[in-house]
């Protein structure tokens, strides 16, 4: 593991030009995430339609390349997914970030998996794990209608 693997092009790309930025009009769930030690912040917006499907999702935030890339890749991926699917993917993703070598789920394509795996580089940078997981925790919190801001520490 080295820096090249942490700062892969895909991360630099999403980090510099994050997708799905900005608040959209008719969101019905949102959640904030904050990493007090780093100052990373994310505010996630989503619309869960009557079929419990995410019909739209976006975020506002500021932070390092890793946290911005993670939020960008995540929102790209989750658009159109069902709540159940979202939870499953998120849980597998968080497992991967923490310890697992792989993301074991059929709910993401090989291409998507590659993108997610690119965030796995943080495994060797323990202080950066929170950066990669911040928006994901916010997503789970939004779905659970948790009122409290997610704070990673």
């Amino acid at each position, binding site marked *: 593991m080295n820096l090249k693997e942490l700062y892969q092009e895909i991360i630099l790309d999403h980090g510099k030009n994050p997708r799905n930025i900005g608040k959209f009009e008719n969101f019905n769930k949102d959640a904030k995430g904050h990493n007090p*030690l780093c100052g990373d912040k994310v505010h996630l917006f989503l619309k869960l339609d009557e079929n419990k499907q995410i019909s739209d999702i976006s975020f506002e935030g500021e932070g390092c390349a890793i946290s911005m890339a993670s939020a960008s890749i995540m929102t790209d991926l989750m658009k159109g997914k069902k709540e159940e699917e979202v939870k499953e993917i998120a849980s597998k993703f968080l497992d991967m970030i923490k310890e697992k070598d792989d993301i074991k789920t059929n709910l993401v394509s090989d291409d998507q998996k590659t993108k997610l795996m690119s965030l796995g580089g943080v495994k060797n*940078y*323990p*202080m*950066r794990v929170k950066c990669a997981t911040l928006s994901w925790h916010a997503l789970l919190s939004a779905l659970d209608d948790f009122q409290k801001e997610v*704070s990673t*520490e």
Partner: protein
Amino acid sequence: MDIENIKKEFPIFNNKVQNNDLVYLDSANSSQKPLVVIDRIYDFYTKEFSNVGRSVHYLAVAATNLYENTRTSVQKYINAKEKNEIVFTKGATEAINLVANTFGQKYLSKGDEVLLTELEHHSNYVPWHYLRKSKGVNIIFAETNEDGDISIESIEKKITEKTKIIALTHLSNVTGAILPIKEITKLAHSKNIPVLIDGCQSAPHMKLDMQDLDCDFYAISCHKMYGPTGLGILYAKKKWLEDLPPYQGGGGMINEVKKEDISYGNLPNKFEAGTMATAQVIAFDESIKFLNKIGIESLIKHENELLQYGEEILRKNNSVKLIGNPKNKGAVLSFTIDGIHPHDIATILDEDGVAIRAGHHCCQILHDKLGLSASARASLGVYNTKDDLDKLNASINNCKKIFSR
């Protein structure tokens, strides 16, 4: 680890003190440190030093992990439910001040009662006294019996509608009385009263099981537990740490800081303001490992044998009077000698290399009750031997000889 030879793990005993072998019988004051702990401090500072939690560089990350490892080790050692129930403080005194201050702020007001015992160390009285001054809280003392013991009845008798918290020692640093904490906690909880235990003297000598004791707060002094100075532990049930306001304010314990307002961080950070005693916390992991290697059962067995032996020889020694005869007793032999003041005893014993303590041992209330202005105290650590106690006895005889000239 061979407990009979455990002395050799403690480098202090390799040196002569004023040409004598050191007979260290002042462990209730502070214990000596095993080499593994001292080495750990040395290695940390020479090879790995960094502040924890705040920087992302390699040394900082490594130090943070080590720091949090100790928290986990402590959690396991005292069988706390969660790692975040362990707060590092600068000592047991700070741990108790933290609870008195924050619990007092939130839950105590004029006329409320705080129930202590006559056995309490000043550290478990003065912080409550502050609330008497600032809020008009009343302090009630459960009374010791003639054995220097506290029974559950003596506590029950003093509980009223107004009792808002009970704070008491697990093991008296004067009479050695071991209090029935589990039963007291049960009683208190049946009346919805939280319980704080001063575990300074129990922690080095007894099996600790927070979930079994079910107490709300437990204060520990690491330097009495074969650990470095400048470190203590507050165990508190998560619900309390979440519920109580923070104590000291500073870096590391905040979530967001604005000019108008501040929000506080998660547990346990909320209670760990400023740069902590990093090296000490990291080294304390070795103290826990050391205790685990000995095994609490053999430690207890060893110390009980010593205590019995010590009581036996001192009881046989004319004009020596043991203080307290509690039902359950640990690690402490307090005594007086007719006609010789404890300070003179301590000075004379010291000349023979026997280190004991004389004074009121920060328990003036108890000494008043006993009608003593001071007492002599020999207290035990895992490194003591029967030989140490024989030397204590011989030195007491020397003392008597000098005073009978």
